[in-house]
């Protein structure tokens, strides 16, 4: 018997005057090595597979902050449909600038970005209404983000001689994934805890 997965819509497309969408991202996010994630301990929302309630890293691992300057942080970050032969998926792109170029930055960040696989969490300016379930968007959980552009243009007006980084996840079956647990306060605590490691 054929195994057909349903692909249906199940919600009216309308907008709420109380929860109008807001464009843009906050100026800070986090990025972690995908291999550092304890996938066995990940807890999804039972009602919505696009929501992760608990995202945990392996012992001794932590996520790293990415802080952007300017009025349009993470410019170029987007998601787009990718048409496939048998199944359509999504391509997610995370873009940011590294306003530094020194030996430590090259060794500890840029060189690692070149060949690693990553997961990033960026904070949407649109928080998702009263619950706050739309703030923390996860990129790369499904397939992993890999670098498809890392450029250091010495005379770039955009990067001031720093690095422009584009990370991309292709073949994700999720249009978007979010980190949300119970309420905004709990989710913020969980998000912040990802940056910590035992001292």
């Amino acid at each position, binding site marked *: 018997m054929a195994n057909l997965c349903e692909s249906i819509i199940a919600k009216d497309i309308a907008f709420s005057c109380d929860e109008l969408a807001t464009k843009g991202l906050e100026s800070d996010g986090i990025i972690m090595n995908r291999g550092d994630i304890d996938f066995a301990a990940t*807890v*999804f929302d039972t009602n919505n597979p696009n929501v992760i309630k*608990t995202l*945990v890293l392996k012992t001794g691992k932590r996520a790293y902050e990415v802080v952007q300057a300017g009025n349009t942080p993470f410019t170029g970050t987007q998601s787009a449909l990718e048409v496939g032969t048998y199944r359509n998926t999504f391509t997610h792109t995370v873009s940011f600038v590294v306003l530094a170029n020194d030996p430590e930055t090259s060794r500890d960040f840029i060189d690692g970005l070149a060949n690693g696989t990553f997961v990033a969490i960026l904070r949407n300016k649109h928080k998702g209404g009263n619950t706050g379930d739309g703030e923390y968007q996860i990129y790369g959980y499904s397939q992993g983000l890999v670098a498809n552009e890392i450029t250091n243009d010495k005379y770039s007006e955009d990067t001031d001689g720093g690095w422009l980084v584009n990370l991309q996840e292709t073949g994700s079956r999720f249009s978007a994934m979010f980190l949300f647990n119970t309420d905004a306060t709990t989710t913020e*605590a*969980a998000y912040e*805890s990802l*940056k*910590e490691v*035992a001292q």
Partner: protein
Amino acid sequence: MTYQEALDRVEELRGHGKAPFSIEQKRLIALMYPEILGKPFRRTACQRCYHDAVIEMAVKLRKEQKMREKCDYHMRAGFIIRCGDFDGGEIYTNANLTNDVARRYLERFPAKRVMFDRIPKETAETPEQATKEPTKQVVQPSEKKTAKGRSNRNERK
């Protein structure tokens, strides 16, 4: 550093107003911040991150009326304690976790040792403790099962 010393220094820094801090003052703030708040101080692109840190420290010291207790327990990155059956659903992270809270939590929910990457040796797990399972947990086994087999979208509400 005692509570009074910390409070005096923070008040002195607050008296600095909106003027930029000197290198020495910035160094002091970066040193005091983790001791008082239990999390590392991180410089960001924010223009006033040192001033904000001073306010954070002042609020914390006035609220707690004591220095932060050194905690021998530490949770892995991503785990927090928030359980309706424990301390009325209070949220605990590494920043506000204490030995007493961690000890009580693990006594009640010994299976949650996996959440920690640092536990003092004297916190032994006993068979009696292992039988006590929480009714509401941070990681629900049933949710994990659903997550792994979540290809059927009919499960959505």
